[in-house]
């Protein structure tokens, strides 16, 4: 049935050397194009036909299917109690491909099922050949932490990236069912208001990403998927991190040059992109693309004609994007039926709302010229001039250009004090702005006097509660809280709560924030029992107002859970910890900082309740993600401390030992030998060796326990000495 192999007496020392050499050549030529590859092989093998044949075999093999691959996954899935079918259909890593849901110039998108560590449906995008897989995956890994920080309901999560057996890069993303924004709007015949709402959602989501330092770089209708869920129109941005990882836009619209890959789909490409290299791409790229998206949704076409861009030579294309002024939307509006005036008004509304994101480039020159004119015509101290100076400062500040903003803010304050007096509402706002400026500059101590003055003066005015006043109270309270001045912070938070209740009622988001803040400062003072009702109210209110799955709600639940743990109310804390973790796993998977914090919190709680097996089951599946996401932070050694403790207590002494030693040395390196975290690790090691010795006496584990006890005692002495 099966013949033993007799070809060429494989297995001798010559064969070993030849395989090694063939391997070297194989790895060296793998990334090359066909012609270059053959040439390189020819050069490397010379006249050695056997070597050449072996290299070619490896190259064929790399692209061939591996018949038995996936068997191990089947076995493990079965061992995990999985009664699912028998592994028909394709599989990539942990993912089983279910059906093809999209295809384009970039490659293919599948709906797939992830099996471990959590079972969920995902979208798996396989990029077509022609890219260096290692580079793509490496670039993705570099961005991974930033991507993990994004938690937004309108951003589809990117979970994972890797290489298929044939070496093509793939990305695993949250599965989003929906149509491209343009198609959805047309199919559902949405009016201007609904279209603007979609763009507004996208703006907010992008702002969240930009705050986390992530740029999309390929915003366009097909990357904004829209669907109707429970009667509501929901938009989600997909493909975050992918354009950057693949370094070029992977769409049917991508164009290439001889010299470099052009980053940008021409219709959505910003003037900066058209003029500069990839390194200069920043948040403005996304902002411009949003503008184009808005334009397209309003007018039914992109600002520059696609046909014209397609047929233009490369240089001409760049010139059009950089220099030409597109037709105004109002002159193009066709099918939507809105009047020009309506469109202009709505545009102004959206500009006000998203000034920081979308309108900076337009607003700045306008402000500058307005200010110059007013200075000349009205004089520096005129109220309108003051307002322009203020606008310049705030605009620059919002955009993060702090050093340019500061002279305007200072000048504004100085003139307002002189012209309007210290107690004028405008002056108070200018004082508060200076306070914010100091906060943004990272100088909280210098912010405090500004905030204090603004607060006192505005209290004296006895105005109705208003936004700036409440914001100021909140900022000031946060500031005091960070400085450890909890009693003062508490007072301000209570005042803010009072104002919020009066201005917005009990169920407003801002009121709930104040309630939560009071809980936080009480907890920081060690007044745990008093903090509890506030934290409970924050949770219940957010459940009511925002829903159970809103990120803010989950944060509030986590905080309550930690408070209950600190009070030793473990039985009450456990269901909360489980609830949060379950939701986070569903929404974000393990590769999210929030999820990992919850995993560790629940793990620690279960250990405290001596539910050691459950603790291990909670912690162990998160280990890979924890190592990838947590870096060298204190969270990592705390995670390892819990994991190692759970391993040891469930009888896996060797694994527990290794994990705890790793935790101990990480804690010692980060925090020092005598730090509390390090001492906790020492204690855990002592406990582990004591248990190990009890299970297997006479193997010397008691001696190791004694060694760690000596270490711990030295650490305790050092800690006490440093206290004195």
């Amino acid at each position, binding site marked *: 049935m099966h013949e033993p192999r007799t070809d060429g007496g494989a297995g*001798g020392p010559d064969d070993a050397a030849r*395989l090694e050499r063939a391997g070297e050549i194989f*790895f060296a030529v793998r990334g090359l194009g066909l012609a270059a590859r053959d040439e390189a092989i020819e050069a490397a093998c010379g006249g050695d036909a056997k070597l050449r044949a072996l290299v070619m*075999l*490896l190259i064929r093999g790399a692209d061939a299917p591996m*018949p038995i691959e996936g068997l*191990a996954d089947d076995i493990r899935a079965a061992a995990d109690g999985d009664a699912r079918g028998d592994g028909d259909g394709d599989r990539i890593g942990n993912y089983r491909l279910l059906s093809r849901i999209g295809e384009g110039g970039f490659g293919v998108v599948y709906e797939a099922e992830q099996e471990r560590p959590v079972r969920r449906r995902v979208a798996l995008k396989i990029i077509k050949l022609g890219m260096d897989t290692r580079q793509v995956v490496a670039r993705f890994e570099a961005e991974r932490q930033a991507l993990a920080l994004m938690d937004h309901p309108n951003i589809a999560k990117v979970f994972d990236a890797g290489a298929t057996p044939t070496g093509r890069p793939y990305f695993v993303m949250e599965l989003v069912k929906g149509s491209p924004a343009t198609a959805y709007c047309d199919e559902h015949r949405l009016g201007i208001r609904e279209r603007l709402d979609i763009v507004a959602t996208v703006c907010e989501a992008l702002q969240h990403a930009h705050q986390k330092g992530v740029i999309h770089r390929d915003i366009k209708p097909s990357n904004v998927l829209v669907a109707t869920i429970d009667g509501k129109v929901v938009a989600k941005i997909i493909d975050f991190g992918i354009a950057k990882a693949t370094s070029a836009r992977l769409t049917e619209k991508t164009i290439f040059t001889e010299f470099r890959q052009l980053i940008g789909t021409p219709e959505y490409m910003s003037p900066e992109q058209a003029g500069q290299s990839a390194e200069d791409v920043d948040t403005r790229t996304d902002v411009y693309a949003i503008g184009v998206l808005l334009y397209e949704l309003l007018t039914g076409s992109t600002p520059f004609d696609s046909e014209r861009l397609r047929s233009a030579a490369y240089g001409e294309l760049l010139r059009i994007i950089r220099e030409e002024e597109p037709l105004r939307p109002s002159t193009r509006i066709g099918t939507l039926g809105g009047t020009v005036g309506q469109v202009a008004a709505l545009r102004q509304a959206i500009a006000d709302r998203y000034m920081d994101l979308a309108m900076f480039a337009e607003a700045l020159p306008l402000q500058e010229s307005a200010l110059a004119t007013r200075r000349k015509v009205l004089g520096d101290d005129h109220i309108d001039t003051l307002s322009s100076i203020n606008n310049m400062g705030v605009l620059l500040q919002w955009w993060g250009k702090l050093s340019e903003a500061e002279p305007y803010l200072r000048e504004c304050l100085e003139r307002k004090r002189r012209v309007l007096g210290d107690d004028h509402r405008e002056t108070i706002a200018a004082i508060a702005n200076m306070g914010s400026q100091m906060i943004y500059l990272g100088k909280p101590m210098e912010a405090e006097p500004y905030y204090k003055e603004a607060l006192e003066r505005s209290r004296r005015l006895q105005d109705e509660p208003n936004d700036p006043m409440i914001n100021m109270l909140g900022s000031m309270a946060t500031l005091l809280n960070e400085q450890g001045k909890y009693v003062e912070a508490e007072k301000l938070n209570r005042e803010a709560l009072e104002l919020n209740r009066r201005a917005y009622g009990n169920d407003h988001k801002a009121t709930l924030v104040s309630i939560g803040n009071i809980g936080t400062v009480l907890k920081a003072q060690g007044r745990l029992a008093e903090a509890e009702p506030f934290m409970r109210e924050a949770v219940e209110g957010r459940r009511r107002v925002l829903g159970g799955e809103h990120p803010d709600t989950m944060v509030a639940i986590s905080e309550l859970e930690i408070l209950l743990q600190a009070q030793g109310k473990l039985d009450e804390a456990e269901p909360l910890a489980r609830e949060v973790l379950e939701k986070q796993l569903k929404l974000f998977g393990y590769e999210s900082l929030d999820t990992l914090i919850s995993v560790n919190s629940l793990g620690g709680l279960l250990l405290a309740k001596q539910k050691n097996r459950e603790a291990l089951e909670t912690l162990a599946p998160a280990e890979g993600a924890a190592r990838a996401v947590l870096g060298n932070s204190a969270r990592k050694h705390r995670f390892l401390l819990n994991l190692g403790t759970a391993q040891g207590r469930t009888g896996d002494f060797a694994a527990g030992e290794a994990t705890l030693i790793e935790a101990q040395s990480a804690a010692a390196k980060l925090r020092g030998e005598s730090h509390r975290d390090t001492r906790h690790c020492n204690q855990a090691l002592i406990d582990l060796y004591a248990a190990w010795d009890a299970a297997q006496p006479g193997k010397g584990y008691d001696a190791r326990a004694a060694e760690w006890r000596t270490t711990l005692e030295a650490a305790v002495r050092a800690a006490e000495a440093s206290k004195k």
Partner: protein
Amino acid sequence: MAELLPLVYTELRALAGSYLNRHRDGDGRSHTLQPTALVHEAYVKMVEPGKRYGREHFMAVAATAMRQVLVDHARKKGTEKRGGDRDRVSISGLAGAAEATQEMRVLELHELLAELARMHARAARVAEMRLFGGMTPEQMAEVIGVSRMTVDRDWELARAWLAGKMTETGDA
């Protein structure tokens, strides 16, 4: 010895149990090895004094045992008339000549692994642990005591060589 690594024991036993279940004869009679026997054998191999036994090492031994079970099964199958579809080992991505049964593929792989081991023992071991033990690169790196990069490279080489060889016979 019963208190040693109960977690790994449980896992290994579940692995062996489910695995052998999938290799039952048409009449439901299990053959070759009982789950406990397989685990016992793995234990005997594991328990060498003075060594550190981590979860990874256990999985590595389990991989060898799995390979052996599968080969025994395939050999037996090869001499019997094949039963119904439910007896078949499920192997995804089955390719190559239509005539090649999965059992033959397993035997072929087994022999190719032996051949590879004579030329590049470490790469062959990596392939065994990965294909039969479902181990991750990190776990394999831990067991063999080399870097993760080395494991990746070994796997790529072993995979290319094995798949290349199997394609060769499939086309022939």
